[in-house]
């Protein structure tokens, strides 16, 4: 009996202690042990300076991340802080459910908000207000299979980039040579092999930007611009005439050695350990006249307006994204702070990428623009999808198909 009393009393004390502690819940989409370890280390620093505050990271699988986060918000159970992907950010900002972090960031000691590059902050600002702070600003890069280039006796994309010859024309040229020298293989696979499905915009965007265009800009569809048509025509020819790009309905995984090149971000470098072939990264090919149009994928920290501890949550975000926080996160997530981008720690100490490769990453962040975003991205993508499917037919008229895409998405822009 005495034992029961002791147990009950202990439970009550524990519950009282828990109730008095401020519990900050942070939703993230990583389940990687090293990532979570680092995040907890950063949170420990915050807890040390804020006694009685507890920080808990909650992993939501990446495939359903935005959806589940939305359900939590709708169900009145929004986390205090969350990671947010670039394509979801505008819808959340427009719904007025995110906290304006500006006052807290400006008041935070040595924060230096101006240290973040303007292109990196564009998505998270609305007027003078800042609704999120990017922690990962990851440019798209070309990953290449060095062995396949060697077999074809070709200079690899890095060498070509160094000579200033890595452009879209060269990309098409070497692709043909790669396929000729590596029978049964492809020269190029779209990002994550999803270029005809969930990553259709990621497939189109790099070539279109290289030709000076964009998917959409200032409420106008850009897919029927002459540059975009030329870019897509070239890719279309590579798929169906040259047969150098993995075609729709076929799998040709770069990471398994089925394709010589792909586009991806540095987070995928960890997969290369198991790939079993020599590899490298290079910038995206420039336009036919050397125009650069790097593409950046992004994720940021946001605080929900409904959080009962939103001021505290904003302080946590400030601490995790101050110069020290961003420098620590840069081990895994490319930073948007100029001071960290040029730092020795970022450029020379990545466990997967050489300092030379990291130079391409830093240049991509500095010059790049975030992937086209919009508050109605899900509807836009759904409207695009059937028209883009029609584009990826062997006999498609590229210009007409792109006009069809624009006709479908313009009302939504």
């Amino acid at each position, binding site marked *: 009996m005495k034992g029961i009393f002791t147990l009950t009393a202990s439970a009550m004390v524990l519950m009282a202690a828990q109730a008095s502690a401020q519990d900050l819940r942070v939703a993230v989409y990583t389940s990687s042990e090293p990532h979570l370890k680092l995040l907890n280390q950063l949170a420990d620093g915050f807890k040390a300076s804020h006694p009685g505050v507890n920080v808990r990271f909650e992993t939501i699988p990446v495939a359903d991340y935005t*959806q589940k986060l*939305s359900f939590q*918000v*709708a169900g009145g159970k929004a986390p205090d802080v969350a990671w947010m992907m670039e394509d979801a950010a505008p*819808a*959340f900002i427009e*719904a*007025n*459910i995110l906290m304006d972090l500006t006052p807290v960031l400006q008041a935070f000691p040595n924060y230096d908000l101006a240290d973040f590059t303007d292109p990196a902050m564009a998505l998270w600002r609305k007027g003078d207000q800042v609704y999120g702070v990017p922690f990962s600003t990851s440019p798209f890069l070309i990953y290449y299979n060095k062995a396949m280039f060697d077999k074809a006796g070709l200079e690899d994309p890095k060498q070509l980039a160094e000579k200033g010859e890595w452009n879209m024309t060269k990309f098409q040229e070497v692709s043909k040579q790669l396929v000729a020298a590596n029978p049964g293989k492809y020269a190029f696979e779209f990002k994550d092999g999803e270029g*005809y*499905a*969930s990553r259709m915009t990621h497939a189109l965007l790099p070539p279109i930007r290289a030709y000076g265009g964009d998917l959409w800009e200032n409420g106008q569809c850009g897919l029927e611009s002459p540059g975009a048509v030329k870019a897509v025509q070239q890719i279309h020819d590579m798929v169906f005439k040259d047969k150098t790009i993995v*075609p*729709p*309905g*076929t*799998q040709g995984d770069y990471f398994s050695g089925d394709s010589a090149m792909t586009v991806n971000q540095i987070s995928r470098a960890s997969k290369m350990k198991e790939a079993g072939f020599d590899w490298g990264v290079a910038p995206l090919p420039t336009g036919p006249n050397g125009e650069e149009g790097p593409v950046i994928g992004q994720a940021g920290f946001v605080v929900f307006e409904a959080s009962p501890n939103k001021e505290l949550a904003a302080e946590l975000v400030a601490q995790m994204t101050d110069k020290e926080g961003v420098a620590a996160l840069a081990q895994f997530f490319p930073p948007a702070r100029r001071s960290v981008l040029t730092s020795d720690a970022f450029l020379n100490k990545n466990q997967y990428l050489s300092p030379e490769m990291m130079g391409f990453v830093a240049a991509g962040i500095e010059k790049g623009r975030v992937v086209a975003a919009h508050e109605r991205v*899900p*509807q836009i993508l*759904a409207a695009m*999808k*059937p*028209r883009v*499917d*029609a584009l*990826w*037919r062997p006999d498609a008229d590229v210009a007409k198909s792109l006009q069809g895409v624009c006709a479908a998405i313009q009302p939504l822009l």
Partner: protein
Amino acid sequence: MTSSLSHRSGAQARAPWLTLQRRDAIEGWLFVSPTLLGFLIFFLGPLIAIFIYAMSDWNFLSGEATFVGLTNFEDALLENPDFWHVLRNSAVFALGLVPLNVALALFLAVALSRPFRGVIIFRTIFFAPVITSAIAWAIVWKFMLQGEGGPINQMLALIGITGPNWLREPNWAMAAVIVTRVIKMVGLNMILYIAALQAIPRDYDEAAGLEGASRWQIFRLITWPLLGPTTLVIVVLTTIGSFKVFDHIYQMTGGGPENGTLVLAFYIYQQGFQFFDIGYASALAIIMFVIVTILTLIQVSLRRKDDA
């Protein structure tokens, strides 16, 4: 107090309140109460909620909801051409899947209802896909049906046929999802038919045989009519299942190509959980509910007519 009680019991012919009938009724209610409670909470509650949602314009993120009456239904039925396209796709899917599934299930059941060496192995082989994860099934078929270098097309190439790009051409994609779905689910209907076939007394067949009926005549005039109730159940369940198909489409085609396999359940998911338009998605769900109910009633009434 005592006198009033005795007065009342006297007036009511001393009938105890807890009669045998009442006790049975209470016991009955107590027995069904857990199920009833579950039905109310998990079925009737959401069903009522969905009617309320369907009449609102609810922004899932901001939480703002306004009453819009029947606007969502009008949007679907009168203004949105996508809805009719999606409904057509669902109808094509059902019309392709149900006859194929029922015919194949019946064929397999007839072949495997009699005992022979290894029958259990064959039944297991045909039933195994039913218990396989739908997602794993779809992933494997997606690999098999690749346009270039896919195993199916490689096999066709051996006999000189150039296979299509199965999942990238709208008509072939629909055919591919129907056939792969049939192969996945046919085992369930096969088992139901086997059970029904085994319940038919052998005497009927034997008597008909003695009268000189051919095997086809026995099947057409005796077995098939006796399988009627089972066929009804199978057709109703398969039709409902075909309208509810989601996971298969989600993984194999994502509704593409060119919306060629965008069926109603997937469209509802898209509206509700990708566009966060819960009001419109709820209205669509109610329309689907009505369609499936009407189809079921038609099938039941046709069956009654047959019986009459």
